[in-house]
């Protein structure tokens, strides 16, 4: 165990706020994990609204057939930036925000291991966001090659593409720094007595996620750097005429991209695994199999990348291997879902907003899992690849999966962060509107995909009109519902009923042993875990 905790001079509680700058400089120079966690969460929230605004643009154009609002080129920019911003700007930073706030609190550490680097990993993000947003205003507009940035289409893009590449580089550096920090914190700074197998599952999932990030972010950096040199320095990595291979780009991208999918869902599994036992008032069922399942999912995620590429014309042996490996992921994922259900079984459940989001998560994420299983079967995937079925599938796992877990986690820990209880009525309203509009938006996309509507098209034939209208109405409703969430969070920060140290009856874990709001410095003397 590191010698850090307790070795510094003892701050007493009345000095809690005495040792840091105030005003804007508090946030710019802060090395406090709670401040940084808060900044990550607000940043991600802001990007969530930017990405949502782009989605509004997409769904407005698709409300009915014909070109209404945008030229096709701009439509492609909207879909591309919607994807990039939601993945790198909204979902990933939100989870890092959770990690910053919760990991030290849950393992009884006073702060993150590399506090100053932590400040850097956050402050890299705003410049990246600025690069992405300003890319709309350069000649030729933002990149329109899809969030996957497939070569050789990327070569045709204007300078907006280069801005996106630099943004991805910066965000990648940020992610890697964050991951190193999380791994070191978890491995070195646990309170005495907290063995790895006693650690909260959220920390476990983040530990595994951080390793995934370190493994694959450099791969993405490599892919986009090769794109950059193909664009400007006359290399031909992806140009067949120069001896390169356009499909090589896809292999490299998806070697990053598939684990990335799990980077965006494993922390969500962790959050849900914290919430369900609390509101079922029962310990998590099958803790160790949860850990093993998470690890197997992570390992399997490295050998399934080519299931995104069943249509590129790989040999039968390749298709079969990637099909079997992909379908296999259903087994550990199934184990996780069964464990959550077994946790609820014979519990004593109540349904506060975090629990609603957690149950909503299981239900809707499972539907995404089922369509994932259907897509894993190569011949069926070939039929559905690059159609709206895929759009439906990944929104079921990413919105209903990651995003709902983020909402659930926010409601769950908001009393700890702010010291106030959130407005339960508004919270529940937010949940119900979100889940209804979410399904309205994305469920019908399954039908669109089966019937043959390709993805990433600004206009469609009239047989797809009805479902697109339904999806657009759902999307507007879903987007507007999020304003309720903003309202709940702001209201909770400003005031409300005082939260006790442990506001949830069934909650266990070190974070509930410190007062609410969590003092600026916690666990200066490490707690002892029995």
């Amino acid at each position, binding site marked *: 165990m590191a010698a850090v905790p307790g070795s510094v001079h003892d701050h007493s509680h009345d000095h809690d706020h005495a040792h840091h700058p105030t005003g804007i400089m508090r946030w710019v120079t802060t090395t406090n994990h709670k401040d940084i966690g808060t900044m990550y969460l607000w940043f991600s929230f802001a990007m969530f609204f930017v990405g949502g605004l782009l989605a509004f643009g997409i769904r407005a154009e698709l409300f009915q057939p014909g070109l209404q609002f945008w030229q096709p080129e701009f439509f492609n920019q909207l879909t591309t930036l919607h994807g990039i911003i939601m993945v790198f700007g909204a979902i990933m930073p939100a989870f890092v925000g959770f990690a910053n706030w919760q990991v030290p609190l849950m393992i009884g550490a006073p702060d993150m291991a590399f506090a100053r680097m932590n400040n850097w990993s956050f402050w890299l993000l705003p410049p990246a966001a600025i690069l992405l947003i300003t890319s709309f205003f350069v000649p030729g507009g933002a990149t329109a*090659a899809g969030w996957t940035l497939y070569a050789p289409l990327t070569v045709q893009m204007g300078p907006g593409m280069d801005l996106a590449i630099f943004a991805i580089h910066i965000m990648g550096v940020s992610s890697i720094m964050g991951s190193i920090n999380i791994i070191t914190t978890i491995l070195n700074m646990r309170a005495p007595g907290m063995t790895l197998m006693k650690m909260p599952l959220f920390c476990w999932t983040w530990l595994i996620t951080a390793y995934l990030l370190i493994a694959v972010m450099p791969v993405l950096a490599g892919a986009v750097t090769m794109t950059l040199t193909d664009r400007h320095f006359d290399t031909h990595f992806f140009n067949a005429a120069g001896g390169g291979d356009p499909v090589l780009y896809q292999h490299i991208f998806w070697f990053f991209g598939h684990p990335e999918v799990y980077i965006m869902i494993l922390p969500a599994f962790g959050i849900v695994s914290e919430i369900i036992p609390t509101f079922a008032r029962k310990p998590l069922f099958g803790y160790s199999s949860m850990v093993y399942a998470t690890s197997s999912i992570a390992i399997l995620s490295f050998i399934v990348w080519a299931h995104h590429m069943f249509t590129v*014309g790989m040999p039968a042996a390749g298709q079969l291997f990637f099909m079997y490996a992909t379908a296999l992921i259903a087994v550990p994922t199934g184990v996780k879902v069964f464990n959550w259900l077994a946790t609820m079984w014979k519990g004593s459940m109540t349904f506060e907003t975090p629990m609603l989001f957690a149950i909503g998560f299981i*239900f809707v994420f499972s539907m995404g899992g089922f369509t994932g299983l259907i897509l894993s079967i190569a011949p069926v995937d070939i039929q559905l690849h690059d159609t709206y079925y895929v759009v439906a599938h990944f929104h079921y796992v990413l919105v209903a999966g990651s995003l709902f877990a983020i909402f659930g986690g926010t409601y769950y820990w908001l009393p700890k962060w702010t010291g106030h209880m959130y407005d339960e009525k508004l919270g529940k309203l937010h949940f119900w509107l979100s889940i209804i509009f979410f399904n309205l938006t994305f469920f019908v996309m399954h039908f669109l995909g089966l019937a043959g509507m390709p993805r990433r098209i600004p206009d469609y034939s009239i047989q797809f009109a009805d479902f697109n209208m339904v999806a657009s109405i759902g999307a507007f409703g879903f987007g507007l519902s999020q304003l309720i969430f903003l309202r709940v969070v702001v209201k909770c920060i400003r005031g409300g009923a005082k939260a006790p140290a442990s506001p949830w009856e069934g909650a266990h874990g070190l974070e509930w042993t410190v007062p609410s709001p969590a003092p600026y410095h916690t666990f200066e003397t490490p707690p002892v875990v029995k």
Partner: protein
Amino acid sequence: MKRTSVAGMAALAASGVAHAQFGLQSPESPIAQQIYDLHSLIFGICVVVFIAVFSVMFYSIFYHRKSLGAKPASFHENTTVEVIWTIVPFVILVGMAVPATRTVLAMKDTSDAEMTIKVTGYQWKWGYDYLKGDGEGISFYSNLATPYAQIHNEAPKGPEYLLEVDNPLVVPAGKKIRVLTTANDVIHSFWVGALGFKQDAIPGFVRDTWFYAKNSGIYRGQCVELCGKDHGFMPIVIHVMEDGDYKQWVAAKKKEIEASRIDPNKTYTLTELKAQGEKVYQGNCAACHQASGMGVPGAFPALSGSKVATGPVADQIKLVLNGKQGTAMASFKQLSDIEIAAVVTYERNSWANQTGDVVQAADVKALRGGTVALK
């Protein structure tokens, strides 16, 4: 099993959704049939698992709630159960993998085809070359036929809106047809759902797939790989004909191609070139620069009155041949010398441009810089 997906969604259908479709397109080839059955099978399994798993969840939600006085149990492990629910899904997966493997192998078997057609993806149209079998030697382009007025909501949309082309691919029914795909610029993907194939068209590489249409009819699909601006506007239409009709079509098509052949060594007049150039323009340039030559402000430059179309001829030819790096202006090297000569002539003598320049095929040939024209 086949109708499960439909039955399950009948409730939604009742809500007034008119001609919406809920399942896969009805299969018209043996492979499409296999895919359809595979999907139905797996979908059925998923529905059963879904109902089983979530009835357990909803049972506990309704009966194991605190408000009903439920006291929490304290169990948190049971190795037997956990082993069972690891093994059972695995067995189900094996059950799904067996028929899927059979289909994968069938889809990959392109041997013994009676006809071979090469499909080339262009931004944004398809090129078809009949390489082997009946109709050998035929080649043509296939462009979106939906008028721009419909797309821009200036005219009512037809029933085949965005799914109609000027020259459909024509094949005989009941024959195994091998399709070679490649692309000229970026990756496209060739897909007709009812016939059960989808194959990416990749520049610099040739991939293959095959299909076998049981019945004659018209089958429609679209490009399914994001390929730039007009990705949504490159439909695929396949006319499957009875053998006799197909033979007639081959004869007629060959005659038509022969008649429209232009002698590249001949010197043409301005009027001839302009007439020919207008066709080339409609097929290749109008999507961006518009039929009016006005372009789309901010996105695609106008040709009418442009510096390029009124400046030195050689610069314009080079631009058409090579495209412009970093913009949507692709290379049009795939066009023949005479086609480029015609379209440049047309552009230099239309709208506000009245240069009077006449460009001949030989001028283009001189600037091609050693690269070989595809046609």
